[in-house]
């Protein structure tokens, strides 16, 4: 039988899960905090309303735990958008098919121009991002882009449309390190509302992407939910469930969790369920307390103040100075971004911020030994 996460996921019910989280008590939270190894029931307690008064304690524990495993370091990475062509409608995304914006897919020369800029900034780990346009930005384009830049970056991650296992295998052969693929929301019906058209409207294909990646043998898989589309407590739980399933099934693979969230009044889609700064810190700490070793990643969507403080509380990798439009660094800085960046500080300033807080920014931590 072809076992995948979907088999496990289908045994859960969203409303019951949320009710279970919301019914957690002070005692459950204290019990969870007292343990050395925590399970998914403990995780529920830690993301529950009952845990809110324990935020400081969670943060202290999260910091100590992170430090033990990752030391005083933060891995630096930078995204490079290759294309904003897209055949999906996603209600929250600037690249959504029906948005009337100029579409661009970077040429080789343009990619190299952007790369030259990012190399000067010191980056060695890069995240390549595209929309979903299989004819122009399919596997051959992605593979070609990777080959074009592989001498300049030790570590290449992609965030592109979900692919088949054999396609991932092909890219791994070409030194692909990691793939990020967020479920956006684990709420099936709400997912349909936000993805009415395009290949992305297939919830199940997306849900089992991490399984295809695990089977293909990728080094790292990044998962997450776009907080705000639905209740963040339940979406956090399903992300955690997904993580634990994957860790047991594909034990040679490393995992990372990202925490994108919709912000109210930022010009984009208004969140259905708002996740406040406090909620986000609670979620990050809950993940760290569930898993000492998972990478937790923070993008420039969040504000300067938030990022200055969160780097101690469980986060282990950080991007900086990101542009979320193809050619955004050099080629066409004025084009429309996929989403609004909140922390626009230059890379040097972020590195300085980390150093002044006793954290060493790590630029290179990978070598393809194949």
């Amino acid at each position, binding site marked *: 039988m072809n076992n995948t996460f979907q088999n496990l996921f289908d045994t859960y019910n969203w409303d019951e899960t949320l009710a279970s989280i919301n019914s957690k008590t002070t005692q459950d939270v204290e019990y969870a905090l007292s343990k050395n190894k925590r399970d998914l029931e403990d995780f529920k307690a830690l993301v529950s309303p009952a845990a809110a008064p324990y935020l400081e304690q969670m943060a202290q524990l999260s910091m100590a735990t992170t430090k*033990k495993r990752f030391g005083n*370091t933060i891995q630096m990475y930078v995204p490079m958008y290759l294309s904003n062509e897209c055949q999906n409608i996603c209600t929250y995304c600037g690249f959504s098919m029906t948005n009337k914006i100029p579409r661009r897919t970077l040429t080789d020369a343009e990619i190299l121009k952007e790369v030259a800029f990012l190399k000067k900034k010191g980056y060695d780990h890069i995240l390549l991002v595209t929309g979903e346009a299989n004819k122009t930005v399919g596997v051959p384009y992605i593979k070609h882009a990777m080959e074009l830049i592989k001498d300049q970056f030790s570590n290449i991650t992609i965030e592109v449309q979900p692919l088949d296992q054999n396609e991932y295998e092909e890219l791994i052969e070409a030194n692909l390190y990691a793939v990020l693929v967020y479920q956006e929301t684990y709420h099936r019906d709400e997912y349909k509302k936000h993805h009415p058209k395009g290949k992305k409207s297939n919830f199940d294909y997306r849900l089992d992407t991490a399984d295809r990646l695990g089977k293909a043998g990728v080094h790292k898989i990044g998962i997450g939910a776009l907080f705000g589309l639905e209740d963040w407590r339940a979406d956090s739980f399903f992300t955690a469930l997904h993580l634990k399933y994957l860790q047991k099934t594909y034990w040679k*693979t*490393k995992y990372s969790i990202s925490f994108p969230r919709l912000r109210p009044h930022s010009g984009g889609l208004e969140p259905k369920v708002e996740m406040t700064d406090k909620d986000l810190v609670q979620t990050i700490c809950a993940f760290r307390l569930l898993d000492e070793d998972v990478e937790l990643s923070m993008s420039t969507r969040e504000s300067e103040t938030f990022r200055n403080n969160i780097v101690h509380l469980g986060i282990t990798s950080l991007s900086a100075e990101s542009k979320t439009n193809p050619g955004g660094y050099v080629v066409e800085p004025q084009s429309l971004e996929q989403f609004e960046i909140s922390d626009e500080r230059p890379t040097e300033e972020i590195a300085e911020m980390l150093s002044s807080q006793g954290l060493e920014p790590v630029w290179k*931590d990978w070598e393809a*030994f194949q």
Partner: protein
Amino acid sequence: MNDILKIADKEFSSRLFTGTGKFSSNQLMSQALIASESELITVALKRVDVDNEQDRMLQSIMRPNVNLLPNTSGVRNAKEAVFAAQLAREALETNWIKLEIHPDPKYLLPDPIETLKAAEELVKLGFVVMPYIHADPVLCKRLEDVGTQCVMPLGAPIGTNKGIKTVDFLEIIIEQSNVPVIVDAGIGSPSHAAYAMELGADAVLVNTAIAVSQNPIEMAKAFKMAVEAGRMAFNAKLATIKKHAEASSPLTSFLN
């Protein structure tokens, strides 16, 4: 007393080996490593920018008397390990390699099967192989048979600071080994290091406990002293722990 540790063609007067991960800055790392007086310092090849001769991390480590020990952290099988070792030899101009193969990225536990395979091949290729392994006495003998110059069994899962949890197996390894035994992972405090040395380990390797301490420089010194104390105690022969009370009148004297 002349108490030199010899591994392959190199002699070490310090029995504290150190690592370079998790420090809050290269400068602090450099000062802590100096304070440790360690003469063998391991560095993850994946962290080194081999194309850049000015790599800041390497510059922070190198001084006279210090030997660089590249490690293969990040590889998942024997094939990748052999490739990494060759890359390290070329880039860092040393044929010493700390062989670490952990296909499990969560607990970084070593794969004994791939490690043995890689060790055999690397020895043939002329490397001085220092394999990081479970505290498995049989595996240690197998590695010795294929020609590794030492064995590096773990005290506890790496980075846990839990101490010498594998003591019963380490004692067997130390008893049986014809090559130096270096306790590699899990040492969280100077007392753990001293204990390993008292057991008869030839050296210990410490990273997290120094790097993540509030004061890495003082902690490095503390480890140096603990390793020296433990070694001295081992050489001086510890008084035996008595398992039974000894009756003042022997119970068997009637036989005489």
